[in-house]
């Protein structure tokens, strides 16, 4: 097997909708599985995915999401997001995709570094105890850029 040219993948997760969170998690985990280093920087709404109280309650977006194929006004009805989320989670379970908390454990055990954005943590008045125990730390964007300062490193905004 050839040596991979991409050595490190860095992800910035800025959203809390299930589809975005899983996209970042699957790519970060997939990198580790290929022998590539990976890290995730959780910022703005992405922080919901590492807040103990919120991470199991993430939703799929039913409004402003044309791929849902339902009229936007219907998507806004009460219970619509919950219903769509329930359906999606059922499909994900079928494919053996782990729930958010378990996925975070897998990522951390696989050596994927998990960072919270300092500015966003302050903005949402969060404390370390609100965030998952597996978190590797709270960083400024400058700190995160320093972690990218290596050859064959890619950075992706989700």
């Amino acid at each position, binding site marked *: *097997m050839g040596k991979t040219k991409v050595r490190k993948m860095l992800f910035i997760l800025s959203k809390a909708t299930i589809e975005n969170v899983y996209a970042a998690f*699957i790519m970060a*985990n*997939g990198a*580790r*599985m*290929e*022998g590539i280093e990976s890290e995730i920087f959780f910022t703005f709404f992405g922080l919901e995915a590492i807040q103990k109280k919120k991470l199991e309650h993430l939703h799929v977006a039913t409004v402003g999401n044309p791929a849902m194929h339902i009229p936007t006004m219907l998507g806004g009805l009460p219970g619509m997001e919950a219903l769509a989320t329930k359906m999606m989670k059922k499909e994900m379970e079928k*494919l*053996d*995709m*782990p729930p958010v908390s*378990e996925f975070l*454990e*897998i990522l951390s*055990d*696989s*050596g994927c570094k998990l960072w919270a954005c300092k500015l966003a943590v302050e903005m949402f008045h969060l404390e370390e105890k609100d965030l998952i125990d597996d978190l590797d730390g709270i960083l400024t964007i400058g700190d995160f850029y320093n972690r990218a300062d290596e050859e064959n490193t890619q950075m992706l905004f989700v």
Partner: protein
Amino acid sequence: MEKTYLDSIIKINDEGYLTDFTQWTREIGEEIAKEQEIEMTDKHWEVIDYIHDKYKKEEALSIRGIKKSGVINIKEFYQLFPGGPLKKATLIAGIPKPKSCI
């Protein structure tokens, strides 16, 4: 493609995975491991046994499955097979590379 391991001609694909599991032996697994710079220990073989068991039952391999396996935890798995553990472990085990994204 073909490759010779310990005087036996073994059928492999372009990534080096065995295409005929019946040709696999523990000694060949050991040789493939050496090429990957992995020194096989009892713990490694326990993992390979688990992988063979899953393969025989036609159950898909995933990192989540490893977590639940009771054989090894994910941290150890990455330590034993550095640089893509499931990829390397299946290569050594003589079975196809897993196609799953998780």
